[in-house]
């Protein structure tokens, strides 16, 4: 499902101007498609590479 980049851009504070969106939209769309392809092989229980690891506290 393609994202509505214009709507997302307008919803931000400060909003991303339309002229800027025109410059970056193609790149965003391409990244979105590439990421979606990679997601197809990802198993449900794969954790992010950066996770919170609590350390022992020494008061």
């Amino acid at each position, binding site marked *: 499902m393609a994202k509505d980049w214009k709507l997302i851009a307008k919803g931000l504070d*400060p909003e*991303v101007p339309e002229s800027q969106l025109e410059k970056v939209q193609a790149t*965003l769309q391409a*990244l979105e498609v590439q990421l979606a392809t*990679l997601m197809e092989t990802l198993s449900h229980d794969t954790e992010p590479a950066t996770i919170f690891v609590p350390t022992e506290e020494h008061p």
Partner: protein
Amino acid sequence: MTIQEAAKALRKRTISSVELTRDSLRRIAKLEPTLRTFITITEEAAEARAIQADEELAAGADRGPLHGIPVAVKDVFSTRGIRTTCGSKLFADLVPERDAAVVERLKASGAVMVGKSNMHELAYGITSSNPHFGTVRNPWDLERIPGGSSGGSGSAVAAGLVFMAMGSDTGGSIRIPASFCGTVGLKPTFGRVSRYGVLPLDFSLDHMGPLTRSVRDAALTLDALAGFDSRDDTSNRKPVEPYLPSEATSIQGVRIGLPEGFYFERVAPTVAEAVRRAAVVAERAGAVVVPVRLPDIANLNTIGRVILLCEASATMERYLARREDFGTDVLALLDQGRLIPATDYINAQRIRRVLRQEFQAVWKQVDCLFTPTTPTSAPKIGQTTLKLGTDEEDVRIASTRLVRGINVLGLPALSLPCGFDEQGLPLGLQIIGRSFQEALILRVGAVVEDALDFRQRMPSL
């Protein structure tokens, strides 16, 4: 002259730190109007530290090979009492109250900092054409970029202004300027050199390392910088080892992988030839060169870009109301990062884990990899696309294509000069190693460097 040669001369008393430092400052004064390599020059402090270094050496208090050596530090590292701009208008007047861990360690090793080097704005780009502090130029051809974001550091080392300059590398920002400027650049393993006191661009991709005139100089600098720092949560407790290869070091039996596919596609023929020639040199020195198939590096680059865009925008979001204070290219990237949903960022970090696991298999076959650092020599200032074969490619995407993925994996990587193209511009060889195997890639790099013998070739300025 290298750090090793200067260090010997200092101990023989044939030269003093004050002489080296004044020579460095004189050369900076002469070339700075052209090269724009510095944001701040610390002349008085440098002179005082050089006097102190000479006094200490005379008294037998030797802090090691960097003692009394003029160096520069990229303006992303906090320096107590000296402004630290990160190449940005936002921080133009920021004077930190603390030193970055790297600066502390350089001071402890007796290095003499002569200034803070210019860089791409916020370390977010590869041209180092800084809209606030000037366009850094490549000493080999003043109409060309030095690479970035550590472009001032690359330019300063290549022009012989300093013996070593510190850089930071989030998607190639040490290795790209090393390749374009004909210097050595070392990106250590993630967690090997502390990031404490460095203005962050990307929390999970930022690495700190030196640019130098020789591989052994990079190694002895890493000796001074490496080690655990409790103030950096990603700092690794793995004990450091000596990194400096001996003069008679050997690479007998070291397995070097020459990747098929990605790394030699869409690369200038002179670059591919120079890297293959370096592999032959390594083979003659006793290494075993084998073809190797790697996991898809394009996938690493995709998730690297998603992570970079999101983390950088998260870091800088609080300043984005001041849109006029950003350069146009950096603002476009920061806006782009804000538009990517959090779910995409998290999924990119999940895929990162999978790709890291896939890459483990490579190290069962080889000890290190030889690849080009950049697909071409330095592009011209203002050039936006590169033509490789029949394809037009964005200069930024092309220049980061062979280095970005290594930041995603956190692996150590070294860039060193491996040839010159038909225009006389330097070309870079990238040696990638296993995590925390800096000593091995430095050993291989030193042997290749000795055999190729490009160290004496300097730009005519």
